[in-house]
């Protein structure tokens, strides 16, 4: 087995020569980029190009066909299962529709990882849960079940749960899908605030242009036809001066 290549010191996550496939069907090949500590990194591309699949590879849910993902310079996919679990625990993930556990209240949803992995007292845990829910605008919803609140609220509660352990990296799968413009805006603000105050790194899968330009420091564009990444960099620069017409069209909403 190859030894893990050394990543540059500031790379929180590095994707190295990654090929993703379902059986013999290759979704994307030769992906390679680095995500720096404290930046908001956007994964974009048209529907069905493998954005969410890439996310699943980066958070350790789906093994790559070839290549590797490095977290703080250590290989995620060549690590022992225990070691991988420890790495995954430093990640927080917000799934597309929240993925809250439906048999638990919001407070129980957020506190479950705390109960499993910290030795906080019940009172401290209650305060911390209240804070996380308040941060996503759900103060006072502790005792609600996911089925009793709206889809957008479920999503925000999912974010509170993803933040439960103060992860170093937060992964968002389509964060603004299903949110009203104000909630969506608030979520963007929250991302920027968390980045500034806690130094959290964000990896966001999205095609919400407003969001990409507001929060994205750098972005990678996956092309479904070329089956690889065709652009990498500051989304504002890509919009104005990418040499790939498809990327420009995407970022300019098809306007020339």
């Amino acid at each position, binding site marked *: 087995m190859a030894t893990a290549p050394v990543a540059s010191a500031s790379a929180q996550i590095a994707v190295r020569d990654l090929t993703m496939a379902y059986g013999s069907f290759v979704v994307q090949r030769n992906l390679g980029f680095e995500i720096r500590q404290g930046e908001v990194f956007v994964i974009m591309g048209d529907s069905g190009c493998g954005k969410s699949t890439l996310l699943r590879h980066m958070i350790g849910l789906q093994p790559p066909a070839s290549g590797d993902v490095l977290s703080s310079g250590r290989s995620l996919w060549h690590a022992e299962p225990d070691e991988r679990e420890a790495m995954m625990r430093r990640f927080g993930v917000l799934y597309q529709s929240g993925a809250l556990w*439906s*048999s638990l209240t919001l407070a129980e949803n957020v506190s479950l990882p705390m109960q499993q992995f*910290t030795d906080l*007292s019940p*009172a*401290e845990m209650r*305060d*911390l849960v*209240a*804070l*996380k829910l*308040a*941060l996503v*605008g*759900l*103060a*006072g*919803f502790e*005792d*609600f*079940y*996911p*089925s009793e609140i709206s889809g957008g609220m479920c999503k925000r509660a999912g974010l509170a749960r993803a*933040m439960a*352990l*103060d992860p170093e990296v937060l992964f968002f799968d389509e964060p603004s899908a299903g949110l009203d413009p104000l909630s969506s805006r*608030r979520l963007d*603000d*929250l991302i920027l*605030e*968390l980045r*500034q*105050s*806690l130094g959290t790194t964000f990896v966001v899968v999205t095609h919400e242009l407003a969001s990409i330009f507001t929060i994205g420091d750098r972005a990678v564009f996956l092309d479904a036809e070329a089956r690889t990444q065709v652009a990498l960099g500051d989304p504002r620069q890509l919009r104005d001066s990418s040499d790939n017409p498809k990327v420009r069209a995407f970022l300019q909403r098809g306007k020339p």
Partner: protein
Amino acid sequence: MSVEHVALDRDGGILRIVLRGSWRRGTDTPSPAGVDAALASGVARVTFDTRELADWDTRLVSYVRTALRACEARNIPADRSALPAGVQQLLALAAAVPEKKTAVEARPAPLLARVGDRALAAVASVRSFSAFLGEVLIALGRLLTGRARFPTRDFLLITQDCGARALPIVALVSLLVGLILAFMGAIQLRTFGAQIFVADLVAIGMTHDMGAIMVGIIMAGRTGAAFAAQLGTMTVNEEIDALRTMAISPIEYLVLPRMLALVLMMPLLSLYGIVLGIVGGMLVGIGPLGLGVRQYLDHSISPLSFPMLAGGLFKGCVYGAIVACAGCMQGMRCGRSAEAVGGATTSAVVLSIVFIILACGMLTVVYDVLGI
């Protein structure tokens, strides 16, 4: 090296909360209960001191937030300006949306109210069952008059699944039930030297009741549960609503094919089960009991009559309707969560089995009166 994370300095009416060291996960941080206690004794103002604070995460924010709330509750002004900018930002963000005040609901209802609730729920469930049955009958009427949207292909697939695919498990269970019946009969009949009547016993027992009942219970666990889980998940995914909005009746499109398939397949499976049960009995008859094959078969067939067989197979039809009805109704009435799907599946199986036994009892009495 352990640092005292918090020190509470009193200077006249001013309480200074000094925060020190690392407040990250994994470090042992203090509980904010101390602040509340300190506020109790005539504090006029609260300030923070974070000059010795190293790194922190949301634990510090949570601590400060609780402390500030304690101040608020006592109307004591607190000066936040010394807090790190990030903490102030997060506090402002947490306060941006006002807290939802939920109605107090605790307090268990009195006994009378609970009994009343249960009774009303029972009435409602009978009503809901009648409504479901009515809808199914209307759909059946539409199907018979050729006005229903009936998915023939789905119907055939479901028929295959709850017919042919169920043969192995039905064979295994029926064979063993026949075997057990024969052994139980043999113990008594042998003492009279009448072991040949084991054949009669098994044949009558399987045909009259056991064949259909065992198949009914197998199908409740196998197919009824599958119907409930499938329709329940479709309810959760709003697939049922999607059918309704296209003016396709989910009863016609989903429930009817399942019910018809099961009602048609159950008598066939029961017949298969009866035959396998007799074979199971025969294994005991020609093995430990030393009876001849010919002799055993004669004694198996002679006590059977067509009305008896038809009665047994009709029971199969009834159990099929019960299993399909319970499975589909629970699936269609399912809530919108993973837990609800589990509940729907459980109650589908429990209802099926309870009603199969009830129907068996009632039909046995009816058959007795009719002299079958």
